[in-house]
C-alpha cells in the first residue's frame, strides 16, 4: 500500500509541474463549458445530460493523451527498468499510476463544479441527478485511464501510445451509435458493450449495478492487461 501511495504522490507531483497537464485541463474545462453552454441554451433544461454524454466522448480523446506518458516516457528515458527492478511490485506501479490519473480527472471534475452552481443560480436542478452524472463520468474516466495506461505499456513513443489508446477506446463509443452503422438487430446485440449506453442512466439519476459493473470490469480488465504487459518484459 505504501508503494502505491509513493507512486501516486510522485505521479501527482509530475502532473503538478507539467505544463502539458494544465493545457489538457484547460482544454477539458473549455470543452465542458462549451457543451454545458450549448446544452442549456439549446434544450433550456436545468440538467447536465447533454454535457455528460459529450464530455464522455471528450474524455475518450483527452485521457489517453494524459496517460500516454506514464510508461512510454519511463521506457524512453530508461527509468522503467529501474522501476521494475526496485522493490515495488508491478501491481503497485500500475495502481499508483492509475490512481494518480483518476485523481487528476477528479480535479478536472471539481473544476467543472461551477456549472451546477450556474444551474442552481438560474434554475432548480435535481441535485441527485447532478451527483449521479458525476459518478458516471468518474467511472468512465477510471476505465479510460486504465485503457490509456495499457496502451502506454505497449509503445515507446508517447504520441503513438496516446493514439493507440484512442483507437482502442473508439469502438466502445461507436458501438453506442451502432444503429446508425449496422442493422437494428446487430445494434441491439452490441448495445451492452457501448460506453454511452451505460452512461445514459447516470444522467437520469439512476445508478444501475450493471452499469457500475461494466465500468468497473472495463477498468479492472485494462489494469490487468497493463500488469501482464509490464510483467511480460521479464520473459520477452
Amino acid at each position, binding site marked *: 500500500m505504501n508503494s502505491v501511495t509513493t507512486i501516486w504522490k510522485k505521479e501527482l507531483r509530475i502532473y503538478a509541474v507539467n505544463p502539458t497537464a494544465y493545457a489538457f*485541463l484547460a482544454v477539458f*474545462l473549455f470543452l465542458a*463549458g462549451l457543451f454545458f453552454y450549448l446544452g442549456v441554451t439549446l434544450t433550456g433544461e436545468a440538467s447536465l445530460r447533454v454535457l455528460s454524454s459529450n464530455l464522455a466522448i471528450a474524455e475518450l480523446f483527452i485521457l489517453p493523451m494524459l496517460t500516454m506518458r506514464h510508461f512510454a516516457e519511463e521506457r524512453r528515458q530508461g527509468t522503467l527498468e529501474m522501476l521494475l527492478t526496485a522493490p515495488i511490485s508491478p501491481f503497485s506501479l500500475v495502481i499508483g499510476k492509475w490512481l494518480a490519473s483518476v485523481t487528476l480527472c477528479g480535479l478536472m471534475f471539481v473544476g467543472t463544479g461551477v456549472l451546477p452552481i450556474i444551474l442552481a443560480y438560474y434554475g432548480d436542478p*435535481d441535485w441527485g441527478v447532478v451527483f449521479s452524472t458525476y459518478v458516471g463520468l468518474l467511472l468512465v474516466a477510471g476505465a479510460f485511464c486504465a485503457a490509456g495506461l495499457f496502451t502506454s505499456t505497449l509503445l515507446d513513443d508517447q504520441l503513438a501510445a496516446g493514439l493507440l489508446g484512442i483507437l482502442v477506446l473508439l469502438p466502445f463509443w461507436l458501438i453506442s451509435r451502432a444503429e446508425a452503422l449496422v442493422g437494428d438487430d446487430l445494434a441491439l446485440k452490441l448495445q*451492452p458493450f457501448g460506453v454511452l449506453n451505460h452512461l445514459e442512466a447516470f444522467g437520469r*439519476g439512476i445508478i444501475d449495478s450493471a452499469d457500475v459493473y461494466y465500468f468497473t470490469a472495463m477498468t479492472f480488465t485494462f489494469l490487468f492487461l497493463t500488469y501482464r504487459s509490464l510483467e511480460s518484459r521479464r520473459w520477452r
Partner: protein
Amino acid sequence: MAMNQARRRFAAGSNSLFVSVIVVAVACVGYLLVDLHRVRIDLSADQGAALLPDTLTKLALLDRDATPVTVTAFSGQRGKQESYYKDRALRDLLDEVDFASQVVTVAFVDFDKERLTAEKLGVTDYSTVVVQRGAARVDIKDRELFKRVGKGEERHLEFLGEKALDRAFAQLTADNHRVVYTLVGHGELDPENHDLGGLSEAAAVLQQDDYKLERLDFVRQRDMPVPRVPDDAAALAILRPKVPIPSLEEDLILAYLSGGGALVIAVDPESPVPSILGRLGVVIPSGRVLDKILVFPYPDRPVPRYKSHPITRDLSDDSLVTVVSGVAPVQAAVPPLEGIRSTIVLETSRDGWIDRGGALKNGQGLYEPEIDGQGPATMAVALEVSRDSGLVRKGIGRVLVVGDSDVFTNGLLSEGPGNASFVLNSFRWLIGDEARISVIGGAKKARRLALTAEDGDQIRWLAIGLGPLLVLLLGVSVWASRRGR
C-alpha cells in the same frame, strides 16, 4: 540455448495470453450475471426517474399474461419550443418500460424521418404514442402526455406520459369496460363537479384503471322499466348523502349487494346514516374523530394509521399519509354479524378519541372521559359479506365504510400524498382487482431554465471562459516559476 529461450518465451507468452483471455471472458460472463440480477438506485428527486409502483404492477400483469405489447412513440416537432424535453421525456419513459418488462417492445420513431412507420400506424400528429396488444390499440396524444400548469413565472410543463401509458395498459388488459356508479339525488358528492368538494379528480384517478365514474339517479332512471343498479356496475358509491335515502332505494342497493356487488359508503359526522349500515352491523356513533397526532395546522385532521388490509398495504409500506378531514367514527359490530367479516382499514393512534364537544385548548379538542369515546377510534372498515349473512345470495359482497367523504374529493385528493392511491386501491379491492393494488404517483415536472439573451451571455463567459482561463494562468505561472529556477 536459443531454442530453450524461444520455448520459454512461447510458454510464458501463451500462458499470459490464455490468462488474459480468461480474465476478459470472466468479465463478460460477470456482466451477463449482473445484468440478470440488476439493482437500481434512483437518486433523482422523489425517485422520479424510475417507474412508479403502479406502472410496475401493471407491467408485471402484462408479463404474466405474456401477450406481446408494442409501444411506438413518435417524436415532437423539431424546432418547436420544448421539443427536446418532450422527446427526451418520452425516450426515458420508454427506456424504463423496456427495462421493466419482458413482453413490452418499445420504439421511438422520428416522425419527420420515418413517415412510412407513421403512415402504417395511421399517425398524423407529432408526440403521439401508440400502444398495441394483439388487435387492440390505444393512441395517446400530445395533450395527454404533456400539460402546462401554474401561472406567470411558476408556469411550467409537466410530463404525464407514465400516467397515460398506465391508462393505456389498463385499457388493453381490462376484460370489459367497468363503470363505478355514484348515487346522486340526495345531495351526494358529484363526479361532474370540478370544485374542491367535487369528484372530478376521483373520476380521473379511476380512469387510470379504466374505471368510469358515472352518476346513478334512481328517480331519473328512465332507460329501465324498473329502477335498479345497472348490470355493468363494477361498484356503487354512496358518498355523503345530505338527506336520508328512501327505503325503496336502499332496497335497490341491497338487491345489488345481494348479487355479490361492491359498495363504498362515506359519511360525515353530520350527514344522515344510511340504514343499510345497520343491516351490515356497522354503527356511526355521534361525535367526530380526533387525535393528538394531527395534520398541521388543522385541528380536525387526525393522521390515520393504516391497519393490515390490502387497500392500505402498499401505502403503509411507502409511509404515504392519507389526509382525512372532519371524520365520523365507524364501529363494526363486535362480535360481527354472522356471515360478515369486518376488518379495520383506518384507525387513530392510541391517543385518538371520539370527541363529543366540551372544552377546547388553543382551538383544539380535548379528551374528556366523561363525555368522549375512548380511542383508538376507527375511521374506516372493510366488510366481506357472505351468503351466511342472508344478505348475499351469490358470491361475496364487499363493502367499504369510510367515516369521511372529503377523502374522495378534489380538495383532499391532490393534497394528501396517499389519497389518490387510497381511493383507487379501495375500488380495486371492492371490485376484486387486488393484483393491481399499488401506489400511484403524480406528474413529473420539467426542470427548465428561463434564460434571457443577457443570461445566455453571462453563462457563456462563466462556463467557457472562466475555468480554462484560470487553469491556463496557473499553468503559465508554474511554467514560469520552473523556468526561473
